[in-house]
Each structure stands twice: as structure tokens, then as C-alpha cells.
């Protein structure tokens, strides 16, 4: 029985990670095609990728969009969560629902809606419009995480701060936010990860400057190459690093 359950676990991991493992393995392929047989280890594709100006520019764009859009989503989500957790407003249940609703809408629909909107209002597509799209998908996430983390404990500390003379922005900046440091970090890192990997919105809402997933997609149009595997591995490496950072900085310390 014990052996069976270990086997089951191993199979599950293989199922999840085999594609990634293959991707990473063939990024080292010493040949022109990322398919078996494996002809030997080479770093030339990485060299090529790292020397590719367009790709590196896209990497920078992705990073910029991820950080800026996540910061905006974080601040907006924090303010919304704080307001709805602290003040009883008529229809606050409805407001919460509406804030979380975009989570259930497919990215494609979000992107199409925004595309229509930008066309109608004459806003030109750029990294900014892709960033707006990422705020739309990450705001519900940040809101949900932070709203769940706000308890009575903080409420009383906020009351004490007000009593001691803090203005409302000081209560938020000096008491509420630092007391929520861990959930804030979790929401931020998750948002960055989502934005970093996101393709559809970035594809439909950018034009000349594009993010990394969009750049990779245009590379794929000219056929498979170990170079795309190398880029994919790099993207995966960044995502894994983010998740590990999140684990070490946030979840470890929270215990």
C-alpha cells in the first residue's frame, strides 16, 4: 500500500512537471530543433537569447508592467478592502461581489472589453494599456487576500491610533498597512507572478512595445527552436524565484 501511494505521488509530480522538464532540457540542445534525440549540452541558445535586443527589451517591459500594475492593484485593493472591512455601507456585500467578480471573467473577455473601450476613447495601445488590463485582473486578487486578512485586532489598534491623535492617512500608513505586511507581500508577489506570465491581455492590448510572453509568441510563429525553450526556461526561472521568495519572506515568517 505504502509503495502504491508513493508511486501515485511520483506520477502526479511527473504529470505536472514533465513538460517543464522537457522544455528546460531541450533548451540545452546542441542542434537546431528542440526535439529528441538529445544531441549534447550547449549554452549557445542562451547566448543567443541574452544577446537578442528585442527579447531583452521585452523582458524589461514585462518586469516594468508586472511591478507597476501590481503596485497599483495592491494600493487600490488595500484601500477598498480597508474601507469595506471597517465601514458598514448600504450595499457593501454587493460592492464586495462586484470587486471580486472580474476574477470569474476570462482574460480574453477582459482584454476584448478593454480593447473596445480603448478604441472607442481613442487611447493608443501601449505597455500602459496592458498594465491597465493587469490591474483589472489583479485588483480582485489583492482585494480578496487583504479583505480576508483584516480582523478586529487591527480594528482596535486603528481605534487606539486615532485616539492618540493620528489622522486617517497616518492610521493607514503607520498602523493598518504595517500590521498587514505579510498579506500585502503575498498579494504583491502573486500579482507580479500573474502579470509576468500573462499572455492574452498583453497580446491584445500592446502594439509596438510588447511584453515577454508576446515576444515569445512571435518567435514561435517562425517555428520551434531551442531558443524559445531557453526563453521559456528563463521565464520559468523568474516565476520559481518569485514563488520561493514568497515562501521564504512571507509564509515562513508568518509561522
Amino acid at each position, binding site marked *: 500500500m505504502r509503495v502504491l501511494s508513493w508511486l501515485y505521488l511520483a506520477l502526479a509530480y511527473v504529470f505536472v512537471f514533465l513538460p517543464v522538464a522537457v522544455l528546460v532540457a531541450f533548451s540545452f540542445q546542441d542542434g537546431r530543433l528542440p526535439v529528441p534525440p538529445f544531441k549534447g549540452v550547449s549554452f549557445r541558445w542562451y547566448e543567443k537569447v541574452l544577446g537578442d535586443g528585442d527579447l531583452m527589451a521585452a523582458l524589461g517591459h514585462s518586469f516594468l508592467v508586472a511591478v507597476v500594475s501590481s503596485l497599483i492593484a495592491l494600493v487600490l485593493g488595500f484601500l477598498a478592502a480597508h474601507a469595506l472591512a471597517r465601514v458598514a455601507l448600504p450595499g457593501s456585500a454587493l460592492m464586495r461581489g462586484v470587486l471580486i467578480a472580474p476574477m470569474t471573467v476570462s482574460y480574453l473577455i477582459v482584454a476584448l472589453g478593454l480593447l473596445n473601450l480603448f478604441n472607442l476613447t481613442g487611447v493608443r495601445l501601449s505597455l500602459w494599456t496592458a498594465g491597465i488590463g493587469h490591474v483589472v485582473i489583479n485588483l480582485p486578487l489583492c482585494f480578496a487576500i487583504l479583505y480576508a486578512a483584516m480582523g478586529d485586532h487591527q480594528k482596535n*489598534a486603528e481605534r487606539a491610533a486615532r485616539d492618540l491623535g493620528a489622522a486617517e492617512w497616518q492610521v493607514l500608513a503607520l498602523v493598518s498597512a504595517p500590521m498587514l505586511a505579510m498579506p500585502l507581500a503575498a498579494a504583491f508577489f502573486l500579482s507580479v507572478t500573474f502579470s509576468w506570465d500573462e499572455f492574452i491581455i498583453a497580446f491584445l492590448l500592446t502594439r509596438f512595445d510588447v511584453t515577454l510572453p508576446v515576444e515569445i509568441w512571435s518567435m514561435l510563429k517562425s517555428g520551434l527552436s531551442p531558443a524559445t525553450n531557453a526563453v521559456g526556461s528563463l521565464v520559468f526561472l523568474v516565476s520559481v524565484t518569485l514563488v520561493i521568495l514568497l515562501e521564504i519572506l512571507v509564509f515562513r515568517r508568518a509561522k
Partner: protein
Amino acid sequence: MTADVQIQAVSQRFGASTVLDNVSLEIAAGEFVVLLGPSGCGKTTLLNLIGGFAEPTAGAVRIGGRDMAGLAPQHRPTTTVFQDYALFPHMTLRDNVAFGLRMRGVAKAKRGEKADAMLALVGLEGRGDRRPHELSGGQRQRVALARALAVEPDVLLLDEPLGALDLKLRRQMQDELKSIQRRIGTTFVHVTHDQEEAMAIADRIVVMNAGRIEDHGPPREVYLHPKTLFTASFMGEVNRIPIAGGQAPFGPVALPDGTLCLRPEAITESGPLRIGPCRVLEAAFFGAHVRAHVAPVSAPDLKLVVHLPQSAMPAPGQVLDLGAETWGVLST
């Protein structure tokens, strides 16, 4: 650093329910007042109205003669010590205590100095660099006290500050609260439902019930000469004996009609208000005294609770000749 508080005909309603009903109270500068009552009597609501956490539906709150209407907590000369301490967990004790001074724009070095002095006042000298989670409940409450006092409020409000502490620590903190209040002279308004705590610390006890003030006075006055039956029974155990036409169940008494209230410890063998021979039903040793249930021989249905001296442990069935040392008659 002290001021008087005037509560003038204050009412507080939430929808259909009246939490405070036309309450008036004068608190002198430097007085230690305890608002005492069962939960739901409106004592915490009254404290919140003084602190500015709520506005009264009717009436006015004045502190130092100044009308507080429309002033938020941060603009009132009051600070509050909360029951759950409400410390800032991400700050050191020094930063916690200095928070109010920081909000008032006091320079860092100066407020650090003041915070250390306040920590010393509450017996936490040299612990400024610790964080709240390293402290016990009693120590946290001291930090909360130091934090509220650091801004030198005219009036300190304490919302059941000792409620979460164990009995021994609570007694110790009561003594300290009282001595700190004596030293700094600030007006203290303290809310509790524990009548022993109220008697231990108060200059004056304000007994509240169902949104009204039942009684107020020094602890001795409220305990020995309560103005209402509610106060009499809330302040401690009491035997209630009906009197009609100069006649008590155990015999004639020279007292007006009403309810005769006798504290268990006021009943002794030598008391001048004679009850007469009483049969002991049961008795138990309580450490400081012997607690016994007795019934007068002339009125076997009237059961009285009596605290007898530690040395005398009566057997059930024994007959004692008892009388009351102090008593009060309240009209019903």
C-alpha cells in the same frame, strides 16, 4: 493635565433601543470615578461618548468646560486604555508609548526620552526595545497605560482594562492604577462590572443599570447605604426582608415600611437590631469567614445568609442568637 467632566442630560439611542436615558454626571478634576454595572447597562457607551467614539443622540459632554460636540477622539483631551490593549504589534514598546507624541510632532529623541520615563512609571524600565508579543498580559496592559498617559491627557478613560487578567494580577494592577492616578492627578474614568475592583480603586462609584445612573458615591457609602435595591444587591450579597406596619417576619421592629437590607457580614451575635434565635441550616468554611444559612426560629421560611467569624464553626441544627450591626431600609 487634569480637567473636570460634565455629562449633561445625555441620551443615546440606536434605532428603537435606548442605551442611555437622560444621564447626568459631574466628575471633578483629578477624581477617580468607576462606572459600574452589569453588561448592557450603558457604561461602555457612556465612556465612548466621553472619548468621542460616538456622539450622543441628545445632551452634551463638556470637558474642562468645553463642549465636545462634533470633536473626533484625536481632538479631545482624552485617551483610552482598551480592554484588549490594542498595542501596535509591529512597533517596539518605546515606539508604542511614543506614538501619541509622534502624532503631535515631538522630535524623536525627546519622545523616546518621555516614552522611557512612562515605561518606568508603569514598572517596565529598560524594556523599550522589546515588542508586545514578548510580554505577558499584565505587562501589555501596563504598556497600554503608559501609551495613553504619555500624551498627558486631561482625562484617562479605561474600558475594562483588567478584565483579561487573572485575579491575583488584577488585584496588583488595581493597587498600581490607584497609586499612578494619585501621583499624576489626571482624572480617571474606569469602566468595570466587578464591584470589588470598583471598591478597590474608586474615589466614587457610579452604579449604572438599564441606561440610567442608579446610585453614586464613595465605595463605603454605596456599599453600606445603597439608595436602591439594585445597588444593594449589585454591590454584594444582601438579605432582603420585607417590613410592613413595623412588623418583620421574625417579630416587631422599629423601622419604616419597605425592604430591610442586611449584608451577611453585618449579622453578628451582638448586633443591636435583634433578629432573635436562628437555627443553622448549613455552614461552610470560606477561609476569611464561615458562611452559613440560617432561619429565624420565629420565621422558619425566612432564610438568611450570614458570615460568622472564622473561629466559630456552628453545627447544623445549632441555634444562635443573632442581630444586625448595620442595616438599611429601602422603599419598594
